[in-house]
Each structure stands twice: as structure tokens, then as C-alpha cells.
């Protein structure tokens, strides 16, 4: 299919250290929001 491409050919999005830092920052921000009750309890 011409409009498809294997997703494994785009590792750059997920490999850089800066992306690691963004993931850590997002997780820590979420933890703080939960800690100070700024978002409702998260259900599963």
C-alpha cells in the first residue's frame, strides 16, 4: 500500500534523550496535579 509505512521505521520519535525528559516531566506534572488534588481521582 502506498499510503502506509511500517511504524518501526520511525524510531527517532521515541529514542532521543529529550523525549525521555518530556516523558519524565509529564509524569511528574501529573503526579503533582494528583498530589494537590487539582484533577479528579483517576479511575481504571
Amino acid at each position, binding site marked *: 500500500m502506498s499510503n502506509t509505512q511500517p*511504524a518501526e521505521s520511525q524510531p527517532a*520519535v*521515541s529514542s532521543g534523550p529529550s523525549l*525521555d525528559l518530556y516523558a*519524565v516531566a509529564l*509524569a*511528574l506534572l*501529573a*503526579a503533582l496535579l494528583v498530589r494537590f488534588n487539582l484533577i479528579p481521582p483517576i479511575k481504571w
Partner: protein
Amino acid sequence: MATAAIRSPKAASFGHRTIALIPGLLLLAAVGYAGKFIEQSINAYAKAHHTPFPDIEFVLWAIVIGLIIANTIGIPRIFAPGVATYEFWLKAGIVLLGSRFLLGDVLHLGGISLLLVAIALSLSLAFMHLLGRAFKLKPKLTSLLAIGSAICGVSAIIAAKPSIDADDEDASYAIAAILALGAISLFTFPLIGHALHLSDKAYGLWAGLAVDNTAEATAAGALYSDAAGKVAVLAKTTRNALIGFIVLAYAIYWSSRGQAQVIGNKAAFLWNKFPKFVLGFLLISLLATVGFFAKPQLASLANLSRWAFLLTFAGVGLRTNLRELGAQGWRPFAVGAIGEAFIALLTLGLVFGADHYLKL
């Protein structure tokens, strides 16, 4: 005002890139949620009709749905950027998972993992090089396969490729072999674990030590049980923490042979290759240990981690293109497969030993 209408190219490109992520993110959410929905529906049906039915985790459904989509209709280009974020969600999920560990447990299990990783690593690297020679693979392709199967799958290969000046073709061969083997591990590890009646901790440790890619190791653990998934992530995170040291060792080896650039500042190199999410995981675990979070808040963080993993597992299925993997030639795959079988057996033996002597 004229100035208000002018946007910098950087801001515009950031906006465009963010918007480009939306379709793929929605696809990840839809596939992951479909997996969760199927699990809940089957469980509700089995409960209502008093029918015994094995509890198949959403993890498996999400991966299978993703695999079917990717290998039948394919992933249209518009979805690709968003789907490729699945490892971002994996890392955010791992950091949040730190809330489910007391730091003492991390140090205990992490210490055992580190010991086992060190033993498994040295034996598996040596074995992979012997295999590469036996199958007459190019030395740098063998190095990439060894790094990928001994340490951390695709991330390790990507980290190592520029450091040892490997070809794009070698890297894509190694990545394809590691991805194919990771997909096989997903389905075989839980079956073997159940057949051997492994405890959650022993199985989780085994999956974390033996399955290559972090996403697949997390999924293989979660497919066994929630507790096994936790331990698998911890063991895999310990393995990931060593990525810089191994890549540095290979870079020094290849530069000493004049086939890669000399590494100047080794400390900076190590920091650059160190997976920062490991530090985030330890920080959240420390905060949970000192009582920074109340009990309901810990439950919320654990659930947030599950949601992040839901997107990850959908991405694992969606990015696995079986036709592409099959087209990579049999030799790298054979070396990877034999090496993986060796590593799986070796780590299984180590886990049995650790369970017996070190009390997991």
C-alpha cells in the same frame, strides 16, 4: 496588529507537529480502549452466565487488534506520527509506576536484577559474537544484534548505531530481527511461565531480564499478571540503566580499531545515553516511600500508569509489520532467534537460582 499575525517558523512547526500527532494518538486510544472493552465484556459475560473463561488481559487484545490493523489495511501515513509516540507513553507510564514501589523494594529487587543482568549480559554478548561469526554476519551487524538482544532492544540499537558508525542497513536488519523476536516472546513467555508454575516475581524478573524491548517486556509481564508486570518493568528498567556503559564499551572497541569516532568526554557520553526515565521512576518511588502521596492518590497514579501503558500496548501491535519483518533475510533473524533462546534459558536458570538462594 501586523506583529500579532506573524508567528515564528519554530512556533508554527511545533504547532503543526503537535496537530500531526492527534490522529495517531486517537488511534492508539481507540485500539487500547477496544482491548480494555473486550476484556471487561468477556469477564462480565462469564460472570453473568457462570461460565468459566480465562481472564485474558486487555494487553493481549490491544496488541492483537493493533497487529490485525497494521497487517491488513495498514497504517495510513496520517496516523504514523501519533502511533510512534507509544514509547513516550511507555516511559511516562514507567515513571508513574514508581508510585507502586517502596524504595526498599526497588533496591532489593533492583539489586538482584543488577547482579543477574551483569551475569546474563557478559555471557549473552560473548555468545552473540560467537553466533555472528558462525553465521558470517558483518561484525557491526553482530555488535548491534548483541547490544539489542542483551540490553534493550531497539533503543539500544539506535543509541549504538552512530557511536559505532554502523550502516543504516545493518541497523534496520538488527531492529527488524529484535522486533520480530519481541513479538514472538510476547506470546511464548506467558505460556512457558504458566507451564513452569513460576511465581509472579520470578516470572516478572525473567521477562524483564530476557525480553528485549521495554514495551514488549512490559507487555509480556502484564500478560502474566499485574504483579508480574510490575516486577518485569523494574528488571527491564535496571537493564536499561546499563545501556550507556555497553554502548560506550562498543564505541571504544570500534574506535580502537579505527572504525568509529573516538569518544572524548566519556562522562557526558554516559549521561547522554542514560535513560532519564529511570531517574523519574526512582524519584516517584522515593516520594511514595516518604508518604508524599495519600493512599487514594497512589491509586490514581497507578491508574494513570495503566492508561499510559494502554496506549503503549496498542502501539506495540500497530507498529509490528509482519511482512516487513519477513523481508529482512533469515540470517540476522536466525542469529537473533538462537541468541534469544540462549538468553531466555540462561536468565531462566539465573531466576531459578535467585529465587532459591536470594529469596525474591
